[in-house]
């Protein structure tokens, strides 16, 4: 019965829209199986977490009221009075953090398996833009509960943007909606978080996914060099998709566990006249940059240390984005190639600085 309805519906649609490309994709897309196949799941998990963000974000939007006098109160209302509001808010916060975590993992797995190489340069670039947008989501969303920590973190964050030469001052005023962090900043961040970023994000995400579907899964060198009969594949539908689903189930359960046992504190309402709470730190994904800026001396030669740091991070980000176009000479005798060494150094730097950020 059910099958009949489905096939009728499909043929009805097929007559009108010609579903051949989708059918081809479903039938012929395949995933190579080898010792690094595990990394193929990371992009999917990140996508799943994005969907969780979308759904919980929309639900929060039903009760959240941006504004100096209502933001904190509405979040408090959500977590105390709204049925399952506490769960939705905690899932939104936890899933946001895991999204960034998995996006980083995904990026480094692509980097170390060198999947960004021709013809996937643009996939890498769109992926990088998506990560940058995810960080912007994190930064703009952090202010929305309008609590003490959020208020001062935004102050510090926008101050750092303000030290950029020429555009810094103007950019800071634009972001803050004035000289200081006020209700105007909150409205602005709310607009950015729920309208501007989702629009841009969706565009790049669609591009990213289209590129992947067009080019198929990347096959590492050792796999490519295997004789055809030794290459093992599984179909994307339903085999790989079901495995994805299994992992998503587990991740979802972990998120609910975290949301229940480690709820996000609401803290005290932001008070612009209070002094900053001691030991204020940004979210963990900004911590390595924050800690590096703290280590830099006030002046390096004639340039402001912090400014140099921000510029260096900007340049490093740009180089990282353009990695597919940078050719590092391969050393045939080296066990670890120079590009891998660069990757290891970057990961170690991020990990060490993050740990120091928490310890110091």
């Amino acid at each position, binding site marked *: 019965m059910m099958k009949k309805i489905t096939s009728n519906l499909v043929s009805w649609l097929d007559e009108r829209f010609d579903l051949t490309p989708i059918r081809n994709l479903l039938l012929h897309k395949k995933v190579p199986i080898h010792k690094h196949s595990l990394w193929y799941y990371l992009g999917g998990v990140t996508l799943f977490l994005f969907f969780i963000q979308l759904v919980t974000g929309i639900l929060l939007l039903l009760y959240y009221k941006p504004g100096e006098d209502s933001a904190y109160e509405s979040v*408090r209302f959500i*977590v*105390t*009075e709204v049925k399952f509001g506490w769960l939705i808010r905690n899932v939104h916060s936890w899933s946001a953090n895991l999204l960034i975590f998995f996006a980083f993992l995904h990026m480094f797995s692509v980097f170390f398996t060198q999947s960004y190489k021709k013809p996937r340069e643009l996939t890498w670039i769109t992926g990088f833009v998506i990560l940058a947008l995810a960080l912007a989501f994190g930064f703009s969303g952090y202010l929305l509960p309008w609590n003490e920590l959020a208020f001062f973190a935004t102050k510090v964050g926008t101050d750092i943007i303000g030290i950029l030469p020429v555009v810094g001052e103007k950019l800071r005023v634009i972001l803050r909606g004035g000289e200081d962090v006020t209700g105007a900043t909150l409205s602005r961040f709310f607009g950015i978080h729920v309208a501007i970023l989702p629009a841009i994000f969706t565009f790049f995400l669609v591009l990213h996914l289209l590129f992947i579907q067009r080019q198929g899964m990347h096959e590492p060198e050792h796999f490519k060099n295997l004789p055809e009969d030794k290459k093992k594949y*599984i179909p994307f539908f*339903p*085999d790989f998709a*079901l*495995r994805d*689903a*299994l992992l998503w*189930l*587990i991740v*979802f*359960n972990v998120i*609910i*566990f975290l949301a*229940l046992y480690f*709820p996000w504190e609401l803290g005290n309402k932001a008070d612009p006249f209070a002094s900053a709470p001691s030991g204020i730190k940004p979210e963990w994904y900004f911590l390595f940059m924050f800690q590096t800026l703290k280590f830099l001396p006030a002046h390096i030669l004639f340039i402001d240390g912090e400014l140099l740091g921000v510029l260096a991070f900007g340049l490093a980000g740009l180089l990282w984005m353009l990695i597919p176009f940078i050719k590092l000479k391969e050393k045939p005798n080296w066990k670890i190639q120079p590009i891998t060494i660069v990757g290891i150094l970057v990961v170690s730097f991020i990990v060490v600085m993050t740990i120091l950020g928490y310890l110091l």
Partner: protein
Amino acid sequence: MRKSLTKIFTVIITISFTLLTYAQKEKKEIKDESIDYCVSCHTENDILPNDYSNYDVHRISGLSCSGCHGGDKNSNDQDIAMSPAKGFVGVPNKKDIPQFCGKCHSNINIMRTYQPRIATDQVEQYYTSMHGKRLKAGDKNVAECTSCHTAHSILPASDPRSTTYALNVPNTCNKCHGNKELMDKYNLPSNQMSEYVKSVHGIDLLEKKDTGAPACNDCHGNHGAMPPGVTSISYVCGTCHVNNMNYFNASPMAEPFKELDYHGCEQCHGNHGIKKTSDDMVGVGKNSTCIDCHNEGDNGYIVAKTISSYLSSLNSKYSLAEKKLIEVRDKGMNDIEIGYLLQDAKQNLIESRTLVHTFDTVKVGSTIIKGIDITTKAISLADAQIDEYYTRRNGFAFATAVFLILAVGLFFKIKSLRK
């Protein structure tokens, strides 16, 4: 045009020059006048009074020694400076000190120049005090102005260095009142300070540095210091504990207290060693003050027992609610509404403790019932939150079970596909 400009310029230069010369001359004159020969000679010869200090309020206001003692501070010739012709009076006799200070302090025209709000009846008040009466009668052991204020290191009472600053008052009074030998002469106790430091007032003032807590002068008065009498004691306590005083004075206990010559509040609470009150003071237990007068069977005994049981019922319910509130908070659940309710309940508890002074079981009872109602509401809210906490955990267990079933199903499906 140019000519008139030159003229204006010349006039400005001339005026400026004249003003400058005048100002310099003025400065020189002030400098000459500022030499205070009383201080400079006495410092040179090392014969300044023992308690002399530069921060003395009179000295800071520009009053020299001669301001009180007479004489001419502008002359460095001892015969002129300290001549009776110049009004020199020397060291005043102890008996004359109140009038000596009163020369200025009783003169509103002088005082308003320095401290417009200061009272000018201190001397008058002083002579109504026990100190003043005895001094007048020729007793030289009693306190006069300098005993409390010092003679040459006087500071306003608002200055923490002052002997009359709230935190220093108990020690200032105790200089004489803690002297057993001296107090014995007047048949007075000398243990007030040792009692006071242990009292709720003393702890607040001296340990917690709460300058709002009463020191000796707040009950006994400043310049008109007197022990409060039988009729006035409840008014003394009532200056701060207004409701307690009003309730007591309107209660059926006020009249018998007067007849029996009982000292209002003091009868139950004591005077210098007032302990922090507790609910045990009411009722028929061993710490009760009611049973000092009431015996089993009489009406007062029954009232005391009833009020005590009321208080303890709200008290125990309130502590239970407080424990629940902490549990809710520890579990990270919503404690906002419960907190507000308990604030109200606490208010009821405080109110009923105050109402004890009406000795009216109906009045106390109705407030207690209100408090119990609020507390019950708070407890049920807390229980709901604690239930919700466990429901969430059970829900998680259920969700995990569902996820697990789905995951196992998926796992087998994947396995079957591979085959």
